[in-house]
């Protein structure tokens, strides 16, 4: 056992709405964990708590055994250099060129020279299958799939120890989704990183994970090795992975 990230009793509410209600989760070093759960169950909120973008109301978050729950300022920036993150909508900076996006963490976060950072950015773009001329385009000129690839290149640009993927395949056609899945698997392996992904796409979840956990009602209700998901014996998990409308999970019509 060698935990890279631990969430202990993490709670977060917005107004009267409890989104996370005591999440306990451990991510082993160099493993790839996927958290599944319906839309609006708080998957994005959970990773934003780990990243310090949102502050949990209660609970503790450990990264490499260090309590990062209440870090801010320079101490927070320092911890952030361990992380790379692929956002749900890409979140590319539309005022910057593609290569400047990819090199952003190197230039701003680590103070690298622009020319050197550009070379690294171009090699990272090649890693995700994008040719050099894409580097000089603006993000708004790219298709959704290409934006995801650029987001991926940006996430891995600084060789992070930990990479988060927020719904990496949502909104892509099945073929592009598979391309992204392959890229995730290969980049995580190449960089030797610990990965945490969240998705409701079961095809993607099976492909990119070695463990799966399910978030429901603000808690982790099941977790286990990917191969065991079909034998979980948990009616919530069964309903989710088979995509059935009937079952213990009642979809709230109002999010």
């Amino acid at each position, binding site marked *: 056992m060698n935990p890279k990230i631990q969430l202990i009793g993490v709670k977060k509410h917005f107004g009267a709405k409890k989104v996370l209600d005591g999440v306990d989760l451990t991510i082993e070093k160099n493993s790839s964990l996927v958290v599944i759960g319906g839309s609006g169950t708080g998957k994005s909120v959970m990773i*934003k708590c780990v*990243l*310090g*973008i949102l502050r949990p109301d209660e609970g503790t978050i450990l990264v490499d055994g260090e309590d990062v729950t209440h870090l801010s*300022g320079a101490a*927070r*920036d*320092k911890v*952030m*250099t361990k*992380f*790379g*993150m692929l*956002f*749900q*909508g890409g*979140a*590319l*900076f*539309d*005022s910057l060129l593609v290569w400047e996006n990819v090199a*952003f*963490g190197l230039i*701003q*976060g*680590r103070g690298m020279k622009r020319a050197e950072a550009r070379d690294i950015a171009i090699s990272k773009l090649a890693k995700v299958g994008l040719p050099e001329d894409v580097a000089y385009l603006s993000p708004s000129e790219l298709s959704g799939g290409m934006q995801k690839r650029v987001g991926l290149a*940006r996430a891995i640009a600084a060789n992070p120890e930990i990479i988060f993927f927020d719904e990496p395949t949502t909104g892509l056609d099945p073929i592009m989704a598979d391309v992204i899945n392959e890229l995730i698997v290969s980049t995580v392996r190449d960089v030797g990183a610990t990965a945490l992904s969240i998705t409701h796409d079961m095809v993607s979840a099976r492909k990119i994970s070695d463990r799966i956990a399910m978030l429901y009602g603000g808690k982790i209700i099941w977790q286990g090795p990917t191969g065991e998901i079909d034998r979980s014996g948990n009616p919530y998990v069964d309903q989710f992975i088979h995509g059935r409308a009937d079952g213990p999970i009642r979809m709230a019509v109002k999010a």
Partner: protein
Amino acid sequence: MNIFAGIGAGVLGLLADIGRLAMFTGRALVALVSPPLYGRLIMGQILRIGYFSLPVVGLTAFFTGGVLALQIYLGGNRFGAEAIVPQVVVLGITRELGPVIAGLMVSGRVAAAIAAEIGTMKVTEQIDALTTLATNPIKYLVVPRLVAAVISMPILAGIADSIGVFGGYVVATASLHFTGSIYLKNTMDFATQGDIVSGLVKAAVFGFIIALMGCYHGFHSKGGAQGVGAATTAAVVSSSILILAADYLLTSVLFGR
């Protein structure tokens, strides 16, 4: 609903807003004094905030100076004091109208643009992305805009002063029978350094207000396109009101009344 509950909720909401704004301002000031300062970004913002505001500020200042000369002439005429036009124009423009006109114009152009840009970055998670790239969003987005606005506004106000006085000169000489050389001499003799400097100090404060309101409303916009639209409006309205309120306060402080 009970009317007292409504008033109470309104007051609590207002207090919460003031608290949020105070905290935001505090964070911006801390980020301002802690290195590094992104010089490249500041230059870019000076270009956007200052340089591109020149046409609109110049044009409005010209007409303001012109109409001021005309009104003072017509008003002064009633008691035979129309010769005072150059003195009142230069006083009104440098102390008051130059900085205020520049402030309101830049507020409409720049506070709106800043709020829209930062608001869009907020709702598309670009601000969250900055955090994950080990970059403090306040330092990267807010500080350069604040610094650029505080530098640009006195320059714009100085230009507005010159063009406003020139507008008065054009109207006075072209249609009010003033002699150019006498008009200019009276202007130069009357205006003091204090009049001009007080106006430039005001302009710097207005610049701070404009950038702060644009950034604050952008950072706190929620929802999608509608939220960004609301933030843009709020930025322009609040910065315009604060500029006029600050103008009154600064005038009473600077001129001891």
